[in-house]
């Protein structure tokens, strides 16, 4: 199983590892790894990093993420990396089973 490779000491889903890889690509903070427990505002995301990250996530998972930069920023909508993972998991689940 390919997901074995990304399992560390804690179980991590495919989605979680993909989200972490996408966030890691945008982070500017001087920090070797992105962890599920990391707060978004500790990762040094600037200006357009947030919307570029959303684009990467939407492309990766074929989902539409509702987000308007005028009503808050990513750091206020999602506290931790794990919050982003949960939101993506939920959007992916919705895509797989459209509302009846």
């Amino acid at each position: 199983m390919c997901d074995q490779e990304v399992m560390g000491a804690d179980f991590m889903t495919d989605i979680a590892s993909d989200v972490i890889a996408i966030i890691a690509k945008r982070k500017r903070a001087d920090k070797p790894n992105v962890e599920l427990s990391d707060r978004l505002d500790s990762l040094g995301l600037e200006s357009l990093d947030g919307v570029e990250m959303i684009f990467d996530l939407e492309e990766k998972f074929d989902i539409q993420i509702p987000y308007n930069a005028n009503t808050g920023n990513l750091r206020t909508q999602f506290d931790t990396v794990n919050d982003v993972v949960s939101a993506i998991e939920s959007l992916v689940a919705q895509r797989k089973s459209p509302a009846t």
Partner: protein
Amino acid sequence: MSRVVVTGLGAVTPLGHSIGSYWQNLKAGASGIGPVTLTPANDELVQKAVAEVKQFDPLAHFPEREVSALDRVSQFAIVAAREAIAQSGITFDMPLSLRAAAIIGSGVGGQTTHDDSFRRIYREDRKRVSPLTIPRLMVNAPASQISMACGLRGPAFVVASACASATHAIGLAFHMVRSGQVECAVTGGAEACITFGTLRGWEAMRVMSPDVCRPFSRGRMGLILGEGAAMVVLEPLERARARGAEILGEIVGFGMGADAADLTAPDRGGMVRAMRAALADAGLAPRDIQYVNAHGTGTAANDESETGALHDVFGTHAEKLAISSTKSMVGHALGAAGALELAAMLLAAREGIVPPTIGYLGPDPACDLDYVPNKARAVTIDAAMSNSFAFGGLNAVLVTKKFS
């Protein structure tokens, strides 16, 4: 150095296809924002609210064989220029033609041609595009087309600085007339980029309002894309007087600068420097200004930064200013915005009526000035300022005076 006056105004806008209808609707606080029709409002499109120039029929303005060479942006540009020139009463015969400039702002030029042509080959698998694809879409087309349609043989070019394009263009034209480099200028801005591809691009930035534009208001949700053109005729005061022209207003100052900071986030310091440069160029003090036509896009970031910058520049006088964003009514016409706003500012001073900021729900703690909410107001205006702050951190500000 000559005093530079405006003797003609023309406009094609979401609130009417003439300067008169535009101004009447601005004063009435009408909204030009509605559902998109220029591209199918299907499920592929999230952003469905725009400010379109409605029911614009090119064949009402141009013979059929001319239309094939004109992108929508050039059609708007020519119609507005012709109206402004007609109002000025100038005919560009020799030798005046040689010393008459066409300096036009446009953010992206012929975007409709771009989208339509490349959709054919990339999506519809057609084999060829029109031979006029390139001359229609080139960003200089609006200036070239005005020069040809109106017989202007002096300096002609397009200025591209995104949302500040028209203000930069008008500022350059103003300085060229003031210094005597040209004897007359047709200047302004034109934009027509409500296309599927452009809307999708704006959507991806996550700065668009889903319904209306509420600059400086509590609960504002972002900007609304607009389109249109506005043009003015500039000439030296002595020339206008000598030919007995009606003088609609005076341009007295222009300031510009760059943030050299973030690609899209507004910079309060950069805004301040451009406003101060425009006041210095005009030889006016902050207390001399009564009205500011704000950049006021309706995004959280712009409106807060611009309010802060107005405090910095105007000090305690900021509270006495009437400030409004006409983008609440016509959306953000990007490279044409500064020209639409200059026209509004000149007419506001002339009539002593400030057009409102519509859609205003109530104060936001970060935006604590007088934005003339929802209803036009009588204000005696001697001098006014118009701000344009572009993506890429490019800022341009004009100062005008009522002519007396």
